[in-house]
């Protein structure tokens, strides 16, 4: 019998990090995700596993600490919320450009600017289209429960190391702050330095006579080499799109209409589906679990079955662009959302469905 605990989403991230054998966490306080750093500091993981936890002087410093640790082959991560994630974009593009694995957690709050401390999903574009400068992508996982906050830490590191690419957990203030039952996994031991040398022979672990010196950089002044490198990155992203698409479907078998929503919005849509079906409206839900890669192929299939799609996002409508691209505008795709930290109610979502399609 697995251990069960009642935890906040942010605490689940922190405990999962320790249990996943993470070597280093570098963070900076920001609402609504400060519990990640607070939990880690209280838990003293250096005593449990030897994990390093450091409160940096800024989000910029924190992500660059992650860059350093990742370049040296360690399992390292940071977490923040929207304004802090904007600050981290410089480091994230360097990490993507140097092809390093790491985990970034964004517990999204409403924006733009300092915005609000309430939950939102308005960082979708920033998360799935790159975020910083240059042509790059992150592997983006969108948890819809506290259990998924926990489980996706391990999954994110698995994918990050598989593809030598930064992974992002795109959560929001609701999932970060709410408490749910979590099944706790067993402790995975941290990698030894010898294991790191074997698994990540590219890492800066100190030049030994048996290999050339290892260099971690995103710089190549030769434009032809830089273009070749960009092609290599793009090929990697196509490989990720081929292998790593994850999504969940709820009551799509007989659906005539479809909600597409991730994270908190997808939970609201589940209630809206119950209300709609009680009124005889056959609606289902496709919940992308990976936002990059996006479940475009499955959406295209579903577009041949349903009469219309309503994307539900706590934003002005960002993911809707990817949904429209996926279904090639073959059927009507509409958006319903609230902004500024407001979470839509199931009744509002149902009304939006009815007004758009019935």
């Amino acid at each position, binding site marked *: 019998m697995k251990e069960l605990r009642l935890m906040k989403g942010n605490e689940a991230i922190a405990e999962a990090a320790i249990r996943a054998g993470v070597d280093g966490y570098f963070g900076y306080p920001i609402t609504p995700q400060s519990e990640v750093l607070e939990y880690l500091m209280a838990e003293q993981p250096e005593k449990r596993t030897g994990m390093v936890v450091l409160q940096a002087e800024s989000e910029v410093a924190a992500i660059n600490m992650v860059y350093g640790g990742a370049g*040296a082959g360690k399992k390292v991560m940071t977490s923040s919320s929207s304004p802090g994630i904007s600050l981290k974009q410089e480091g994230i593009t360097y990490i993507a450009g140097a092809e390093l694995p790491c985990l970034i957690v964004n517990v999204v709050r409403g924006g733009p600017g300092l915005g609000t401390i309430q939950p939102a999903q308005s960082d979708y574009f920033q998360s799935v289209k790159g975020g910083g400068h240059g042509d790059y992508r992150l592997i983006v996982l969108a948890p819809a429960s506290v259990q998924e906050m926990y489980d996706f830490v391990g999954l994110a590191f698995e994918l990050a190391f598989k593809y030598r690419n930064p992974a992002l957990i795109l959560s929001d203030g609701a999932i970060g702050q709410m408490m749910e039952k979590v099944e706790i996994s067993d402790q995975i031991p941290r990698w030894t330095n010898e294991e790191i040398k074997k698994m990540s022979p590219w890492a800066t672990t*100190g030049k030994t006579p048996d290999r050339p010196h290892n260099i971690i950089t995103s710089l190549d002044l030769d434009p032809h080499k830089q273009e070749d490198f960009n092609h290599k990155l793009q090929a990697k992203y196509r490989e990720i799109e081929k292998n790593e698409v994850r999504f969940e479907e709820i009551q799509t078998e007989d659906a005539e209409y479809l909600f597409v929503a991730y994270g908190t919005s997808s939970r609201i849509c589940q209630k809206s589906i119950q209300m709609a079906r009680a009124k005889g409206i056959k609606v289902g839900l496709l919940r992308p679990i990976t936002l990059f890669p996006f479940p475009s192929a499955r959406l295209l299939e579903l577009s041949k079955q349903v009469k219309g799609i309503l994307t539900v996002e706590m934003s002005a409508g960002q993911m809707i662009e990817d949904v429209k691209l996926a279904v090639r505008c073959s059927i009507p795709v509409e958006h319903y959302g609230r902004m500024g930290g407001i979470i839509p109610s199931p009744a509002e979502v149902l009304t939006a469905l009815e007004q758009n399609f019935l």
Partner: protein
Amino acid sequence: MAENITNKDIVKEENLVFKKTSLFTEKPLSYCPGCGHGTAHRLVLETIEEMGIQSETIGIAPVGCSVLAYEFMDIDMQQAAHGRAPALATAIKRLYPEKFVFTYQGDGDLAAIGTAETIHACNRGENIVIIFVNNGIYGMTGGQMAPTTLPGMKSSTSPYGREVISMGNPLKMTELVAQLPGTYYVTRQAVHTPGAVRKAKKAIKQAFENQKLNKGVSFVEIVSNCNSGWKMEPVQANEWMVENMFPFYPLGDIKVPAEQ
């Protein structure tokens, strides 16, 4: 007899007075002739070679003229975003406390865009070495005003000379970090004469040796020239440095461990 001596007779181990540091790669240095970076690189590499710590050392290159330091140094290195080298070094040293970790940074990198990272790494007392090459100008970018550009000094963004009232004062980062409890050893050196090189070497070696003690940052500033950015010939640039830079950035130890 003299005419019978051949090269073969001369090139012998016992006659060797100087050789290329083995930790230099085969890549030709990209620095301008007369620039101090090549010498500063050599002193770092000689130190690592003499201490026998090549396999235990991780270096961080900055953005600036020494951005490609990793191409010349035959050690494992990472290239940091502009100013962020002390953040990378912090993480690497904490994750590998048994390794030797150093940053190699210029004045724009360390004293402008990386001020926060520098001060906080120094204040936390990270057990790292920071090599700070200060030539009072942005060299790589093409001779723009740096935080260390002297009052009245001309650059491409202070073409009539640095006017303190509108452009602010030059920043003495080395004196500043010496005030912080997390720095263990702080010194300012130069590499323009054989005597200065010997002193700078001693300082750099001291800084690396200090990492064994776990007592905080060892910070070595090297005041250097930028003949291209200063628009001077190498000899003239060194003379100008002695006459103008040294009075403002005086050479010598600023903070020495009490037990030394």
